């Protein structure tokens, strides 16, 4: 929440009189993880509000990022030791989003300058905070790249150029598929308007992803009352074992 607030502040401070502003909405700002949760598709749409006519130079571009909760990650690397493959070294990435999707009207490198990326942390490598990782490996960048590669393969990090459709420089829409192996937490949705690679305006909102119902109950019980949860698991196991045996004995007569 504090981050959102700070971002809002920087936006307000940086763009006192933005010529073009984003007005945006989501199809839902809550995602409930129920027992049969199988991913969710979020429709993201919005419009560009402007007081003055469109400037003639450069085309207007839209970037939308959806970012899951940040968490520390350990990345380990295997090497051959004594004939078998073992984890030999690893690094600790301070914070990496559990989910990250970038949708844009065009490939990111064509519509965003590096300095703007540096300022707003838009591209995937920028969204990962790996500042203090230079610990005891020579090539921490390989580890960070591996983190991105593995998560891209799992569909947790998505780079989707040309997926935002922009109509008459005013209306835009896109959709982001949230995978089924989703973490709980606040998902930050950021909208950027760029022209000539410069960010004109930024708008931030959140999607609340939460376990509900049985999922919520079990998760809370497991963490708040672990002993009771453990005993309950055992009771279910014993009951099922006894039940199956009794039912089959009955069936045999």
């Amino acid at each position, binding site marked *: 929440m504090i981050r959102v607030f700070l971002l809002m502040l920087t936006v307000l401070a940086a763009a006192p009189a933005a010529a073009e502003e984003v007005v945006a909405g989501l199809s839902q700002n809550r995602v409930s993880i129920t027992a049969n949760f199988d991913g969710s598709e979020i429709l993201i749409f919005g419009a560009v509000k402007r007081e003055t006519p469109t400037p003639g130079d450069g085309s207007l571009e839209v970037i939308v990022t959806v970012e899951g909760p940040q968490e520390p990650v350990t*990345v380990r690397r295997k090497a051959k030791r004594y004939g078998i493959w073992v984890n030999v070294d690893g690094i600790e990435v301070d914070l990496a989003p559990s989910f990250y999707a970038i949708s844009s009207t065009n490939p990111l490198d064509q519509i965003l300058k590096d300095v703007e990326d540096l300022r707003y942390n838009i591209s995937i490598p920028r969204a990962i905070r790996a500042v203090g990782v230079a610990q005891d490996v020579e090539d921490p960048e390989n580890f960070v790249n591996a983190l991105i590669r593995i998560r891209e393969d799992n569909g947790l990090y998505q780079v989707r150029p040309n997926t935002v459709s922009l109509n008459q420089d005013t209306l835009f829409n896109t959709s982001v598929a949230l995978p089924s192996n989703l973490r709980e937490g606040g998902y930050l949705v950021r909208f950027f308007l760029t022209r000539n690679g410069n960010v004109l305006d930024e708008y931030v909102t959140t999607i609340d992803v939460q376990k509900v119902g049985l999922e919520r109950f079990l998760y809370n019980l497991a*963490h708040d009352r672990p002993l009771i949860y453990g005993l309950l698991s055992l009771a279910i196991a014993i009951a099922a074992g006894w039940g199956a045996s009794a039912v089959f004995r009955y069936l045999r007569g």
Partner: protein
Amino acid sequence: MQIYLPIAEVSVNAFLLLGLGGIVGILSGMFGVGGGFLMTPLLFFIGIPPAVAVATEANQIVASSFSGVLAHLRRKTVDLRMGTVLLIGGLFGAALGVQVFNMLKSMGQVDLLVKLSYVLFLGIIGSLMFVESLRAIRRSRNTTAPPQRKKHTWVHNLPFKMKFRTSGLYISVIPPVLVGVLVGILAAIMGVGGGFIMVPAMIYLLGMPTKVVVGTSLFQIIFVTAFTTLLHATTNFTVDMMLAVLLLIGGVIGAQIGTRIGVYLKAEQLRILLAIMVLAVCGKLAFDLILQPSELYSLGPGTEH
């Protein structure tokens, strides 16, 4: 039908889990083993985090062993006294195993440890069982083989002797306690009941009669895996009740079917089939360790700063 597992935090197909539980249940009913040594690697394959797979599998084994032990209690093929002695060792071993597991988890070597234990124990047990049952089959072909005499080994010279009436044994409590400790450690680290190591150890090391071995092994496995479940639930929060329920529904039904199938097969045939299966799992895991993995890097949860 996809179902979201609250602790594992992944979404998997419920019928896949029921099916896996069922197949492993049939095998465990046929061979009198918990089936954990098959189920835990299978859970890794379908993307359940290893820590959750190990802890939840322990919970599932409680169900299948309990279902099995009821049948054995009715047939009076459980040596409760021997079971209790094994159990004392087992609880101690399980506590030790969970400590080792947590220590290695923080070092990032838990996968290696689990896999190495699998390769080592499955390899040894599988080969022993394979050779032994081949010999048994050959012996049953030419039935002229002389009856075996009870051998007096070093096991019989240890102190603290105790009478085990159901097994017809008068031996020291030290070997059963040690077997219990070993199986307890394995239960905690590998997410298995340890039947596949307990059964041969009881027959060859303690010299127990085959008919009481399976029931007694199941009896003590219930308590050791129940204890392991509680330890994992309270220290790691990694027992997934939803996953456990799906697996054990399939598992207990499968186990009952498997027991019926087992009746139609000869003991030696059963054992050679089990040996082949154990060796196959062992071979697969060994290859994975030796061949270069396609992805050298792996991700794990980081430590909170």
